[in-house]
């Protein structure tokens, strides 16, 4: 059982968000959802707003919202540099819901150019937060 563990570090600018030995780590990158087990090939990927799942042995899976940043996978160590990382109990669900509605409204108004990109990002962010906060 202990053979399939690898080191995971999630670092945000304000703190070391998570550090420990895990069996599996799931997160969302710009190319899609990925799950990482031990002995993954070396990979650097850019994160997209989404829910990350941390699976530790003999423990319930932990969820967290990772908003942006990137992930670096080396042989036996995974480092996530997250610009924004939040545990479910730190998320203000009401605010996220409001942000979601605001973003949707802006998208319906057919925003263009950078505004469109910004609204899409805001929508993704708020959905990631809401998803992470769900039990």
């Amino acid at each position, binding site marked *: 059982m202990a053979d399939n563990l690898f080191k995971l570090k999630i670092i945000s600018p304000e703190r070391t968000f998570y550090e420990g030995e895990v069996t599996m780590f799931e997160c969302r990158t710009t190319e899609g959802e990925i799950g990482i087990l031990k002995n993954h090939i*070396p990979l650097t*990927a850019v994160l997209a707003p989404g829910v990350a799942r941390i699976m530790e042995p003999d423990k319930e899976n932990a969820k967290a919202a990772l908003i942006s940043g990137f992930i670096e996978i080396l042989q036996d160590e995974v480092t996530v540099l997250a610009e924004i990382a939040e545990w479910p109990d730190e998320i203000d669900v009401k605010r996220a819901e409001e942000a979601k509605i605001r973003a949707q409204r802006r998208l319906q108004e057919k925003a263009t150019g950078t505004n469109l990109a910004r609204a899409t990002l805001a929508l993704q962010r708020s959905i990631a937060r809401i998803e992470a906060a769900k039990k």
Partner: protein
Amino acid sequence: MASMRDIKRRKVSIQSTQQITKAMKLVSTVKLQRAKQRAERSQTYFLSMYQTVVNILKRSGYMEHPYMKPNVSGKKAVIVITSNRGLAGGYNSNIVKLITQQEWKKEEVIIYAIGKKGRDALRRKGYEVIADESEMINEPLYSDAMELSDRLLQDFSDGKIGEIYLAYTHFRNTVSHIPTMLKLLPVDMEEAAEKSEIDSEVEDKTLMNYEPEEVEALNMIIPKYVTSIIYGALVEAVASENGARMQAMDSATSNAEEMIGSLELQYNRARQGHITQELTEIIGGAEALSN
């Protein structure tokens, strides 16, 4: 010799100044502790960020990328991080000096000011200050740094500015703070390669994959890199500011102590002189009467 009353008044005034400097020293000591912890906590992030970016750059070689080469515009943008309040010794003037000493023409430089002291000093010297984010320094947030770097990168890709520099005070330890000028963009390939040679030899052997492609990944990572450097500089600058203020107030307090001591001596001398004079007058008067 000054009169006793004058000396006393002076002494009282210095004593109350000393009380203020002492209180300021205590306050900045506490603030320094907090800022220091904060700087240390965020350090791991920047080190890994720097490492990753350098590794990517090294592996991808000298590629053609808009962030890697100077822009057509000859303007230099300088982010200047100083404090909003004075009484911090040479903290602010050192940063200003750092900029004026560069061999740059004033017309070429655009200042993005963070901190009122630096903003005012540079404006007086005739530099063009186009942004003022002085509120940021009170409580540096990562989102502030993000906004600023977005704006800078936008100006950079619009061709308004050709190079981006960052002037801040590096916090080495509690007593040593070094004014530093950093070049943010275009990324200096040679410098990066030089620095990375020492510490990344081991990682060289692993073949890294990128998702998305390297160039695209770089597009997304460089803004994060710039943001993280700006944030790191902000956090360090706050620590340096409080360190500098603590030192300045410490020496002010001990100077006041010295002055009070010498005034005390003067006062006692004046008092003694006064008594001696009175005695001679009485004796002189008595002698004049008895004759």
